[in-house]
């Protein structure tokens, strides 16, 4: 790799007012698509395509990428403040971010989220740069067998996210898995659990389910409880200091931050896993590696840092197979490829050889966009967080409306509203009786991946697929992770017994 292209591309980017202007313009646009629940970066690219049409290829690509890469930074804002996920991958941030807001620590959560997103995005870009030479063998190493074991690994996280009761967590997780079976089975062409409804052929919409299981119960609970999101009395002494405290948290947990950034980037690298997986896996990792896991779910700042770094770093990872194989690393990248081709950029191995300058320009775009977004949102963060002190009676209808719009826009299907109400009711019951809710999302998201990969693996290799080297490694990791979890619980019980 020629080092001069690395710096010449940065220099060209910084000295081009057009490019910088476009990145700056992309900030509020991307934040908007992130903050409005259910919209997401994919829709953003689709809507921007007509405007980008005819632009200089490099500028167009820079603009779209800048917009897309910071969507999840904005998306975490409603997650933290209202418990409403801005995008699917931002749901993991709700689990600890929202309780923090409820305790009056909304500013701190936002600060942690912003710093984490920024760091994650930059590390993701770095990852992209470092992986360039070894990309092909890494991406090709992951096939259906590995996906299956990865999905199982993810599902075992149900245990870690169950809070105090493993049984309850498993029940909820299996419920999610059951719901994941709804739809047209790609292996047999049979419509399962669709009750004759064409709408259910594509399965339960994940965006709707996530909104329903997290946002709806919180809003109902808020209405029942009365008052504002934050029950803390002191609205006064509030603002920039809290946000800064959150950022310091990220520095304090630097090990976790770096680890989850890398995990997120790796998950983004593997085509087919998707953004939802990255954030939950990293959240679970944070729980597992914490010395005090019982704090999670009640406002542990690591529960905000971990998924947020992953959300942004996965963008860097996802860009790799997109640019070099023309194979999208995520659903957002699918549209990105179309946009790139429309701009005249042909993704493929030839890009490395013919246009390394463009590749590095995009890497630098990721870095600059993430840093810039953090700075801009930082300035607004104290105002955002004051919303948590707003009266519930003002907030709830607004949030419900956002949830409904997001749910509808996800599939342009009005039936999603009914689903929102139905799953929302379920979510409220879970909330009322203190059953954990994250396992539901995990089951729903990972179920199809697990089943599909299992079917393909059996068709391709028979049961021997489990003996493939990478699969074996991951099976060992999975067993180790589960064993570690049980060991920790036993130790905690022993500790409690000892303390008595």
């Amino acid at each position, binding site marked *: 790799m020629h080092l001069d292209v690395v710096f010449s591309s940065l220099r060209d980017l910084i000295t081009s007012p057009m490019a910088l202007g476009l990145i700056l313009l992309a900030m509020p646009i991307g934040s908007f698509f992130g903050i409005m629940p259910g919209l997401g970066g994919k829709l953003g*690219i*689709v809507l921007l395509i007509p405007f980008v049409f005819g632009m200089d290829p490099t500028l167009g690509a820079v603009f779209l990428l800048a917009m897309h890469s910071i969507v999840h930074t904005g998306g975490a804002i409603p997650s933290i403040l209202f418990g409403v996920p801005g995008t699917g991958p931002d749901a993991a941030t709700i689990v600890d971010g929202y309780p923090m807001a409820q305790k009056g620590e909304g500013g701190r959560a936002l600060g942690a989220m912003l710093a984490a997103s920024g760091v994650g995005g930059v590390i993701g870009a770095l990852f992209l740069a470092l992986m360039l030479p070894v990309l092909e063998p890494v991406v090709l190493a992951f096939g259906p067998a590995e996906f299956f074991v990865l999905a199982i690994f993810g599902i075992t996280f149900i245990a870690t996210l169950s809070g105090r009761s493993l049984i309850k967590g498993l029940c909820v997780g299996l419920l999610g898995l059951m719901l994941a079976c709804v739809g047209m089975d*790609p292996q047999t062409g049979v419509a399962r659990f669709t009750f004759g409804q064409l709408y259910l052929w594509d399965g339960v919409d994940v965006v709707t389910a996530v909104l329903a299981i997290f946002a709806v119960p919180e809003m109902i609970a808020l209405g029942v409880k009365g008052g504002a999101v934050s029950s803390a009395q002191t609205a006064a002494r509030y603002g920039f200091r809290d946000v800064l405290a959150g950022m310091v948290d990220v520095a304090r947990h630097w090990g976790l931050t770096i680890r989850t950034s890398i995990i997120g980037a790796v998950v983004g690298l593997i085509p087919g896993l998707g953004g939802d997986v990255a954030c939950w896996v990293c959240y679970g990792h944070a729980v597992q590696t914490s010395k005090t896991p019982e704090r999670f779910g009640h406002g542990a700042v690591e529960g905000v840092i971990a998924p947020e770094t992953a959300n942004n770093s996965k963008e860097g990872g996802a860009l790799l197979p997109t640019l070099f194989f023309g194979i999208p690393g995520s659903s957002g990248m699918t549209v990105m490829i*179309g946009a790139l081709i*429309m701009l005249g950029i042909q*993704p493929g191995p030839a890009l490395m050889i013919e246009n390394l300058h463009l590749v590095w320009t995009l890497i630098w775009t990721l870095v600059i966009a993430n840093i810039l977004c953090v700075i801009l949102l930082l300035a607004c963060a104290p105002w955002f967080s004051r919303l948590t002190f707003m009266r519930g009676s003002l907030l709830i209808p607004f949030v419900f409306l956002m949830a409904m719009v997001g749910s509808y826009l996800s*599939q342009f299907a009005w039936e999603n509203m009914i689903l929102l109400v139905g799953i929302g009711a379920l979510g409220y019951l879970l909330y009322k009786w203190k059953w954990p809710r994250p396992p539901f999302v995990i089951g729903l998201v990972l179920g199809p991946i697990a089943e599909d990969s299992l079917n393909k693996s059996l068709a*391709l290799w028979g049961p021997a697929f489990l003996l493939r080297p990478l699969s074996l490694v991951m099976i060992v990791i999975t067993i180790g992770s589960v064993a570690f979890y049980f060991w920790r619980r036993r130790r905690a019980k022993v500790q409690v017994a000892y303390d008595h």
Partner: protein
Amino acid sequence: MWKVACAAAIVAGITAAPASADEAEDFFKGKTLTYVVATSPGGGYDTYGRLIARYLEKHLPVSKVIVKNIPGAGHIVGANTIYAAEPDGLTIGSFNTGLVYAQLLELDGVQFDLHEMSWIGKAASDTRSLVLGRDSGFVDFDAFAAAKEPVKLASPGVGSAAYNDTKILAAALNLNVEVIPGFDGTEGEMSILRGEVAGQVGTTSSLRSFVANGHGFYALEIGGDGSSGMPQAAAYAKDDNARALLALVEAQGTVGRLTAGPPGIPENRLALLRQAYVRALADPELLADAKKLDIPIAPADGAQVATLIETALTQSPETTALLKHIMAAKAPTVSVKTELLTIEDGGKKVTFQSGSETVTSNVSGSRTQVEIDGKAAERKDLKAGMACEIEYESSGEFESKIIRCGG
């Protein structure tokens, strides 16, 4: 009184006479046309849809053409919506031609009838081709067709158009393939790169970058005018059934990116829409845009599309039965009238002569229907030497479905 009624009837008759082209123009003036795309935003159908919508707006007297995405159930929801829309000419849209299969196979959920749709035109031809991986071990189609072991091919989910194309091609040309479904989008290409499968069947254009990057080659093309230089599937078809099946796949390749409206659009408005469509697709600006988007344009007007679709939908009962046969997840069965040669294991296995082969068939206690002398019986009642009519699966364990013996 009578005269007034007569006069009124005449006046009514005149005003009810077929409306003219001007009426159509007037009708569309100032109105909004909705162009339905049966997929979510982004992707081939959406790109074509938005491009065509933009230029239809230019060539129609409407004030606006808006694109509406109605995804779901593999284009079926969108097609249903277009079919059920008000037939005033203000709602038209696009869906996958592969829905021809859905109608032929009488799939659940299909609420449209392609015979009745008002066809406005089509924008592209996209033949189907078989692409084999560079490292698949096959250098050309002949080597592939001659393979002794079943060759694995990737395909999207069962029921998708590409899956159907793959199965039909395999059946038509008697190829020894094992289709692995579930590879949506570009997952199939990744699978080829990983060496899990040898190749896949898909639209020629969607596989172009894969081939251009040197990962694979076009082994066979189904349809097209031969200008691509690829080996043609038709050359390998050995009988009429095969030719009929290939013709079905070819027809779909010819009618790519179609635009249609609900049945019953008034003649004059349909004519105006068709005319505007043809003009839009001949517009040099559209062609320039299409070039930039790197999407091919090969238009045909509504009348031609209607003919092509009718041909595709008109399949002999034989071919339709064959199609259902091919699409069924179960193995095709063979029926034979023969004598039972040997019985093993208390009736669990029977051997008999089927044509020139000796077949050993599994008899299931639960799945196989056994009848002796017209009465239901158990497999342990079967005896060597019985003259029976047997229907059994033609592969795997050769499990018998029905064994009817006459003592």
